[in-house]
């Protein structure tokens, strides 16, 4: 298991390199020239050329990438074109709130999704099951920005139940919770549908397994059969799904953070792309990609915890 995880860690190096390359190339393709932006509207052609040389933009593209790699490895992600602040520092400040928002979304959405899915599986074919299915489909189909805007319009603006914008402090403070509520609700809603549906499918399948019959034959109550015997096996595909869905959650974070003015990576990414702040945008892409890799790593580790067969397979 440890070897498997180490291997996993090693294989994420080429993935990271790929991310760096794609992020780097993407910004090469964008038809805005950073040197022109830095020089401003009054910049002369000579000035622009000068800035270009300073930034190393006149070197061949492969060399530019190589220099970029070297700098990244030293933890230097460059400076923002807009306010000249170090990108790494800005990212560090924005990372906390984004993780906070993710945690605040997952902490209610995942358990609720699992609960709904399990109850639906236990009442298969009944009204509750259909209601959950309808709800999941709605949850998947309704775009996050629409839900976010509705919440903003009604819960925050019209009824004034929640603050409109921004972060109110750490999660464990009342103000922090108050501020995180709407963005976390928006982001969590993306998650509930898929989690509930996957849980339902997995639990239905596991409930038909022979070992569930054994548990019943032992005299276990239906509640115990589901919680102690079915769920642990059923959670394996659910964990996989959550890992895969983290990608859409990161996408959702960009939207939720922008709508609710949450000072996280998502808003930073949107802002930097809009303002052609390309070192910042590259940094954001890098952080989001790293987040994805870390989550997948955690998912792999969780498999081992949930399923002893996986644990012993790669010993």
């Amino acid at each position, binding site marked *: 298991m440890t070897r498997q995880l180490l291997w996993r860690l090693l294989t994420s190096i080429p993935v990271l390199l790929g991310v760096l390359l794609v992020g780097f190339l993407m910004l090469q393709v964008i038809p805005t020239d950073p040197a022109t932006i830095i020089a401003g509207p009054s910049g002369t052609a000579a000035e622009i050329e000068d800035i270009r040389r300073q930034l190393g933009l006149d070197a061949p593209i492969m060399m530019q990438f190589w220099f970029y790699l070297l700098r990244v490895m030293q933890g230097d992600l460059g400076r923002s074109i807009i306010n000249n602040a170090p990108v790494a520092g800005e990212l560090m400040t924005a990372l906390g709130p984004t993780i906070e928002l993710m945690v605040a979304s997952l902490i209610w959405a995942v358990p609720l999704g699992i609960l709904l899915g399990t109850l639906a599986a236990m009442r298969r074919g009944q009204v509750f099951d259909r209601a959950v299915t309808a709800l999941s489909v709605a949850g998947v189909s309704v775009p996050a920005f629409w839900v976010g805007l509705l919440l903003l319009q009604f819960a925050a603006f019209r009824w004034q139940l929640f603050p409109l914008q921004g972060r109110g402090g750490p999660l464990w403070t009342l103000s922090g919770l108050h501020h995180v509520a709407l963005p976390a609700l928006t982001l969590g809603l993306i998650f509930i549908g898929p989690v509930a549906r996957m849980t339902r499918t997995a639990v239905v399948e596991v409930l038909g397994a022979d*070992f569930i*019959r*054994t548990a019943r034959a*032992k*005299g*276990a109550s239906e509640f115990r059969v589901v919680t102690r*015997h079915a769920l642990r096996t059923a959670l394996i595909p659910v964990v996989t799904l959550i890992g895969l869905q983290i990608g859409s959650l990161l996408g959702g974070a960009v939207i939720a953070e922008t709508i609710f003015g949450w000072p996280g990576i998502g808003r930073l990414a949107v802002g930097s792309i809009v303002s052609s702040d390309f070192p910042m945008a590259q940094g954001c892409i890098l952080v989001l990609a790293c987040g994805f890799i870390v989550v997948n790593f955690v998912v792999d580790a969780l498999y081992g915890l949930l399923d*002893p*067969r996986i644990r012993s397979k790669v010993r």
Partner: protein
Amino acid sequence: MTQDIPLIAVRGLRVGFHTAGGTVAAVDDVNFSVRAGETLAIVGESGSGKSVMSLSLLRLVPSAITTGEILFRGDDLLTKPAHAMRDFRGGRIGMIFQEPNTSLNPVQTIGDQIVEAIQLHEAVGKAAARARAVEVLELTGIPSPRARMKSYPHELSGGMRQRAMIAMALACRPELLIADEPTTALDVTVQAQILDLMRELKANSGAAIILITHDLGVVAEMADRVAVMYAGRIVEIAPVTDLFDGPEHPYTIGLLSSMPSIDGDSETLTPIEGSMPDPLALPAGCRFQPRCPFAIKRCAMEAPPLETVRPGHLSACWRAPLLETLTRGGQQ
């Protein structure tokens, strides 16, 4: 003595399922009883309803319509509320399943699964339950039972898993053990070991056994009495030696002659012609009649009741006692 009062008496048991093609009765009007300490084998081909019947005794068949009476020491299990059933399941009635590979929870240790069985029925602490679990594992002859407590099912061989299943079923000292094809999924040598183990445990605990099997060899080795099932009904029920020596139902005769034997050297096996009827389109009258070499007109008109042929030997055949009928027919 209480010998004459049955431990479990099944009366008019019917297990039906709703299907797209109509309601199907997998078990239809089954009657039998088992005395304390007795082993009743229930034999039949796959599809005869014997597995469904055994599961229905503990009401473990999902979405089935079960009617009739299942009297356990006079208490009708079919009228019990769900929570009361739990005292019987795994407590007074233990159950062993066919597939030890899939019937054990793959993500829990053997120890935890046995401990759970104990704690569900007895108000004992974790430590006492663990001690008990080691004890029952030891009874089943598993090598180093203490270490096996921490094993997961996938770390054990098929035979060891079945021993663990047996340990789990016996952990609460049940009065009745239902074993649904306990050796079918195992290697022949392991099969013999498991059967020996069951016999030994039965001798020590005095538990009655209902043994579901399609293997007449297993029947001969284990059973006191045998019930033969065909298409959801019991067609013959008799003490084991009586059944093997003088089968009365044509289906039983067919089963016995399709069994290979060591002493009958050049003897060819005689398979029963035809196949089990479709449960949605059962033949009128006797269900075996389309395949029966002895069938007469009446067989296709009326279903024969299960009636005494000799003391203790019941058969559901219009032509019973078959042997007598045939010899008389030969004389005429």
